[in-house]
């Protein structure tokens, strides 16, 4: 049997997930240096593409969203197709993909949050930060979520960039938010917000905080909120000092310098206060009779060095109480298993080696199945980190193709896959549909001086497209 990858018989690849990694995988497949002709069908369970660039990146970070122009270029390849609103494991099963494609790549990201594992975590008013993020970004699944913004004090657990996004959005003035593409329902709710104090809680010290320097600098430049840092908490402990003296890591030195600068600031009397705390961990959330969170018990941590010299937190016996009515946990994302796809529980990823999905029993690659991005390596890095990651997976895919180790689909024609998808999900969106929807969102935004006004319900999207 002839090996696929020619103009007459292209290599047919299904990509599950239209986030950055899905595009990077498609791009690497199109740009392969072996002259293999590839057709890529990208599926997403949402009608809209771009994954976390649309639903995760903060609305006041439009510059980061500019990467979508590069994604659209990939999608302009005539061998690229998009099927939006088609869910793997529900609308299309693994068996369907195996019958229509030579190779399948799972790029579904890390869709859920890690838990803190402390008592009171599920009290009313305690939320995963990811839900708040999805809500203010207009993710249709979170359209009807509610957050009690009548509370005056909120805590965000974690000091990564997601945590800082949440804290910043809570501290932005309505005027600042009104020029972004934040979802209308969130803008409306945040206009009425009574939140005055937002705590960002880091379990380690300033030198170990995961947020990056542009983000930490930005919170010092908010229109109507001031950032407050305790001088004693940004003073470097001896272990951090020694480690930094040795590494001379410039980004970390700068981070510490910015934070120490905040500690010197005088109160400016702004409406909101963003208080960044270090070396504290929540050990319990306490609630009132109605089951609403009213306070958080914190333990102070100290740092110790592991065998490799990495600095980790260890609880002391000093505790403090922090009255808060709203809690967002942002202690990391975690991947969700896909139906029928082997999962590695230890790391919360698809069981894989360099992107080849492995059989859990034999630990050998499963022919035709691959993974890339966060669901392959876990949530780390910036958007662009997924490009080399996807490239590694694609290299494996092309090596396997050269060995003849691909699926032998019963219906390899592009038209056969499309017919099946349209039969199962008559309302699925093509890339042309998406581009129309995008133009509509942008034009709605233009009237209000905003980058776009998002459609936040699937029915709304379909209606706008005249379906």
């Amino acid at each position, binding site marked *: 049997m002839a090996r696929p990858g020619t103009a007459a018989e292209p290599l047919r690849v299904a990509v599950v997930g239209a986030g950055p990694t899905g595009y990077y995988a498609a791009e690497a497949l199109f740009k392969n240096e072996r002259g293999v002709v590839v057709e890529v069908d990208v599926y997403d369970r949402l009608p809209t593409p771009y994954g976390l660039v649309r639903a995760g990146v903060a609305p006041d970070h439009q*510059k*980061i969203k*500019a*990467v979508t*122009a*590069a994604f659209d270029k990939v999608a302009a390849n005539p061998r690229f197709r998009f099927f939006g609103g088609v869910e793997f494991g529900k609308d299309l099963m693994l068996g369907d993909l195996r019958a229509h494609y030579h190779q399948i790549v799972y790029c579904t990201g890390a869709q859920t949050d890690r838990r803190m594992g402390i008592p009171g975590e599920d009290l009313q008013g305690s939320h995963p930060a990811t839900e708040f993020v999805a809500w203010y970004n207009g993710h249709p699944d979170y359209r009807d979520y509610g957050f009690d913004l009548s509370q005056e004090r909120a805590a965000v657990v974690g000091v990564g960039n997601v945590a800082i996004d949440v804290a910043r959005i809570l501290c932005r003035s309505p005027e600042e938010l009104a020029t972004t593409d934040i979802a209308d329902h969130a803008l409306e709710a945040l206009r009425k917000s009574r939140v005055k104090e937002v705590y960002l809680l880091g379990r380690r010290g300033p030198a*170990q905080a995961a947020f990056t320097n542009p983000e930490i600098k930005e919170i010092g430049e908010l229109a109507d909120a001031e950032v407050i840092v305790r001088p004693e908490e940004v003073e470097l402990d001896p272990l951090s000092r020694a*480690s930094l003296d*040795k*590494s001379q*890591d410039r980004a970390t030195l700068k981070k510490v310098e910015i934070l120490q600068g905040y500690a010197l600031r005088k109160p400016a009397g702004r409406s909101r206060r963003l208080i960044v705390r270090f070396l504290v961990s929540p050990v319990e959330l306490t609630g009132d009779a109605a089951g609403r969170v009213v306070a958080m018990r914190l333990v102070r941590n100290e740092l110790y060095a*592991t*065998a*490799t*010299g*990495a*600095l*980790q937190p260890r609880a002391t016996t000093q505790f403090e109480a922090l009255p808060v009515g709203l809690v967002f946990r942002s202690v990391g994302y975690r991947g969700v298993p896909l139906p029928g796809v082997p999962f*590695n529980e*230890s*790391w919360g*990823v698809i*069981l*894989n*080696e*360099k*992107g080849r999905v*492995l059989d859990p029993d034999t*630990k050998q690659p499963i022919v035709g199945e691959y993974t890339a991005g966060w669901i*392959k*390596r*876990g949530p*780390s*890095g*910036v*958007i*662009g*980190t*997924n*490009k*080399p*990651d996807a490239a590694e997976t694609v290299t494996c895919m092309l090596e396997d193709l050269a060995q003849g180790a691909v699926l032998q689909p019963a219906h390899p024609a592009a038209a056969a896959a499309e017919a099946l998808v349209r039969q199962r999900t008559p309302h699925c969106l093509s890339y042309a549909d998406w581009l129309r929807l995008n133009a509509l969102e942008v034009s709605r935004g233009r009237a209000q001086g905003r980058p776009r006004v998002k459609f936040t319900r699937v029915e709304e999207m379909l209606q706008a497209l005249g379906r």
Partner: protein
Amino acid sequence: MDIAGILATKGEKAHTVRPEQAIREALALLARHNVGALIVVEGSGRPVGILSERDIVREATHDETLFGRKVADIMTRDVITGAPHDDLLTVAHTMIEKRVRHLPVVDKGRLVGIVSIGDVLKAQRDQYQGELDTLQTQLLSDDARRGR
């Protein structure tokens, strides 16, 4: 990024050998798995040492009967181990400074994997490449907006 991110794309476990096995068997394992080191574990799964190509080469220069000896005789006992949440930057630094090529990763006393200096450098390279790509995209978009 932490070293769990490296282990995530390395399949399941590290390749291991028991202290009482013969060097001959260890060599076969190194060749079969195409790796440079084996973690030496006791019956309980607790890592007690590491056996690298270098350990074998060093010993072979003055003992030609080496193959029949036990792994425990020549393994390195004083092993630096990593934890899944150790950060990449610190680990890279320590491995280079202490000239460690293979780092067994232990979680709650249990061996959960091994990372090599090659793995660490590759992860760092990907991280830098990714940051560079993201920064370039943003700069280009600035240029586009200014009409350049």
